[in-house]
């Protein structure tokens, strides 16, 4: 578990736009927080905990993590860098949805608990445990409860695929569509 004691880590910082044209198969891990982790000449900065501990899988950070652009690439960068969960007092709405869609846990804790975890971590990289069943983070002898939207929790636990779920409802969608065509014909664009 590493600490990233910064507020409002936006998705432009999580992955600068210039990297987003790469196909996912190339792996996005190297782009994660690129400009924060590297000097202008590309060298890794030693004062960044993430750089010293490339095998970290949990990040504790401050409020409003993942605000800004809807780029799912921000989540790809975290996931491809081996991050399994981000722990913060709050997350950008779009980011949180994107995270869950990629099996990354956005765990909400209180401001006080986030600060406590950050203080306990200090410059170290202690091992910690996250239990999705009980919604608990365990760091040493400290148990910290976290919150997660129940829907997101179920999705993370079941690894549901939304497209499959929705395709099971195709008849209902077809009925809705027929009804909308009838009651709101203006909702279809006029052909040019």
């Amino acid at each position: 578990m590493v600490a990233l004691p910064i507020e409002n880590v936006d998705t432009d910082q999580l992955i600068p736009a210039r990297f987003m044209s790469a196909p996912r198969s190339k792996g996005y891990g190297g782009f994660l927080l690129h400009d924060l982790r590297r000097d202008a000449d590309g060298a890794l900065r030693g004062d960044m905990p993430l750089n010293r501990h490339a095998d970290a899988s949990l990040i504790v950070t401050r409020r409003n993590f993942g605000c800004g652009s809807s780029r799912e690439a921000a989540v790809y960068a975290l996931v491809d860098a081996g991050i399994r969960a981000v722990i913060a007092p709050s997350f950008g709405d779009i980011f949180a949805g994107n995270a869950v869609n990629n099996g990354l846990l956005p765990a909400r804790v209180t401001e006080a608990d986030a600060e406590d975890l950050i203080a306990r971590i200090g410059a170290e990289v202690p091992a910690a445990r996250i239990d999705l069943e009980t919604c608990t983070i365990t760091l040493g002898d400290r148990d910290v409860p976290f919150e997660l939207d129940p829907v997101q929790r179920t999705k993370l636990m079941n690894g549901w695929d939304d497209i499959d779920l929705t395709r099971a409802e195709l008849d209902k969608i077809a009925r809705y569509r027929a009804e909308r065509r009838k009651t709101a014909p203006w909702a279809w664009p006029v052909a040019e």
Partner: protein
Amino acid sequence: MSAPRTMLDKLWGAHEVLRRDDGVSLLWVDRHLVHEGSHHAFAKLADRGLAVAEPDLTFGVVDHYAPTRNRDAIADPQIARMVGTLQENAARHGIRLFGLRDPGQGIVHVVGPEQGLTLPGLLINCGDSHTSTHGAFGALAFGIGATEVAHVLATQTIWQARPKSMRITVDGALGPGVSAKDVALHWIAKLGTDGARGHAIEYAGSTIRGLSMEGRMTLCNLSIEGGARFGMVAPDQTTLDYVRGRPGAPKGEAWESAAEYWLKLPSDPGATFDREVAVNAAEIAPTLTWGTTPEQALPIDATVPDPARLEPGKADQARDALDYMGLSPGRPIAGTPIDQVFIGSCTNARVEDLRLAAMVLRGRQAKVPGMVSPGSTPVRLQAEREGLDLVFIKAGLDWVGSGCSMCVGMNGDIVAPGKRCASSTNRNFKGRQGRGARTHIMSPAMVAAAAVTGELTDVRPFLTKRAA
């Protein structure tokens, strides 16, 4: 009598295909807008061998990677590939594409409204957080990630938990030189970048009613900078006047019945919101950002905050922002020298924005270099008919093609490291306009004033002289 409903209630109800026991709704998507950045989603679709469910409701726009110069031979192979991939995907799936040579080409959130693809009462999705722009018409419009884009492509629906409702009521007259951009930066500075997280905002009040559609779009566009995925304004006569006659808008009898329905969308009297915020328009000055998040904004006549006087959490962030921005605490923000200016983006590159900037620049010279990128080719042509292009060019600014340009730092237009840019865009995040770039966001009129003096400047004296 049924209980009074908010516009959000009405729009949500009209799009609900089904609701699961856990309260999450499957919503029908009336318009799906895709851009070059949607390549991940098309790849997901290809992996599963699925077709686009409703190509007639899906529209492609080249904007994020659109070069603003020398488009006929795109020099950067990465950019050429991104544009080419969208062209291939659009052709493969039978999607109408507004490509680089299309007369309707532009930024997706300018093109949709301009072409009449954006209408009141619709649900509109796009893989871009500024999709809230379209809410200005009284539409349910929100940005989504790539997994969701793939889902909409495959099913024309989206799973969504209903956000909480929030009404921001702005009343009173805006002062001279104060625009929708200032209203947005003002409330975001007050409530924070996560102030409206989890909420759908409805902007209401006499000030909002008095805004043009362009102004309403600017305001709704910036909702996400305050944390809200949704921002909307109730349809009224201003809305109808804008929409009528647009290429994709209904015609004849269809128009009549649509307009009748649209005017029933506003929240009912007595409808209650989960959260209410009131803003007094008279208190809003021309506003700009000083730091690296949109909440770090202040009136142009204020001084740069001193971290020593802020609460601990905010102080750390302020110190870091001042360091990145190269500013000293306690000094007036006005008078800070700038290196360049940019007018453009989905926030502020519509013709009204260009007119306001040109009003300031007419007959004046810019002291610093800069670019003006109109929001679309139709905006460019309209501006050229009005001679606005010549105002910018004579002032010494570059008049270029349209696209996301210098707002997003991925199409070749960037601000160099350490350079300070007065920008009509939406994000002052670190590195947003290029690595190490220092961005101050403000209205196009304020950008124009900064261009003239070469420093961050109050636009108001420039306008008073003009009005006289």
